[in-house]
């Protein structure tokens, strides 16, 4: 997986925030870039950030750490961060680290817009 590319492949404005689509494997190599892209967006002070993980095929603990950091930023500002579309392979790491109860996780972007 090339590490120079952007990780957020698409982002779409919704009523109270933004839906970003993340692509590929989120591991030690690519997490720093994801962190940079997410934090840039979070600076815009969005009420709702939805992260669509349906095109993520692998995530390791550095990827999870990046998402935890984004969640903390949103929480600190009383804003929402929602994950959606997790493949079972990827859901597993959230379950094993018991973060499936910490994040708001929904099936798809439609339900994430309501959550």
């Amino acid at each position, binding site marked *: 997986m090339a*590490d120079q590319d952007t990780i957020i492949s698409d982002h779409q404005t919704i009523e109270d925030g933004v839906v970003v689509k993340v692509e590929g494997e989120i591991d030690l*190599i690519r997490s720093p870039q994801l962190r940079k892209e997410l934090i840039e967006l979070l600076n815009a002070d969005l009420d709702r950030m939805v992260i669509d993980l349906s095109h993520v095929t*692998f995530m*390791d*603990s550095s990827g999870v750490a*990046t998402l935890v*950091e984004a*969640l903390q930023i949103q929480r600190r500002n009383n804003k929402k961060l929602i994950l959606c579309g997790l493949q*079972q392979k990827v859901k*597993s790491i959230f379950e094993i680290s018991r973060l499936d109860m910490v994040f708001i996780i929904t099936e798809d972007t439609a339900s994430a817009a309501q959550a």
Partner: protein
Amino acid sequence: MSDRPDIEIRMVSQPRYVCAVRRAIEALADSQGMSKQDAADLALAISEAMTNVIKHGYDGQIDRPINIQVSPINPNGRKGLKIVIEDECEQVDLSQIQSRPLDEVRPGGLGIHLIERIMDQVQYAHRQSGQGMRLTMCKFIDAQKTVSER
């Protein structure tokens, strides 16, 4: 199990290469009849263990040796895979290698927890050469401790 592993991968501690090992181990587990989810979890555990060697053991140096050995095992008729990861890091006190409590939500500190939950056996040791660590792990195919029981 004979002394010579079925597959041995010797590589430099380049983070880019971790992905290749992860994919190889997932394919191997699959070829041994492990479920797709368990094989994916196994690949994650191996990835975390290798990442830890690079980050903590080698402090990010990319040209140090990492050695991964994989063999099918079958103790008491229980099929599984044994994976051994050896490095040439400075030996640390084994009690330093531990997971943190998960109730505190903060970035980082999940690797060891993932490894311990995914694998059926996990043992860190100092290599006898006086330098380097050895991580020995097993995951069974008919595992009693499956991750889905978490």
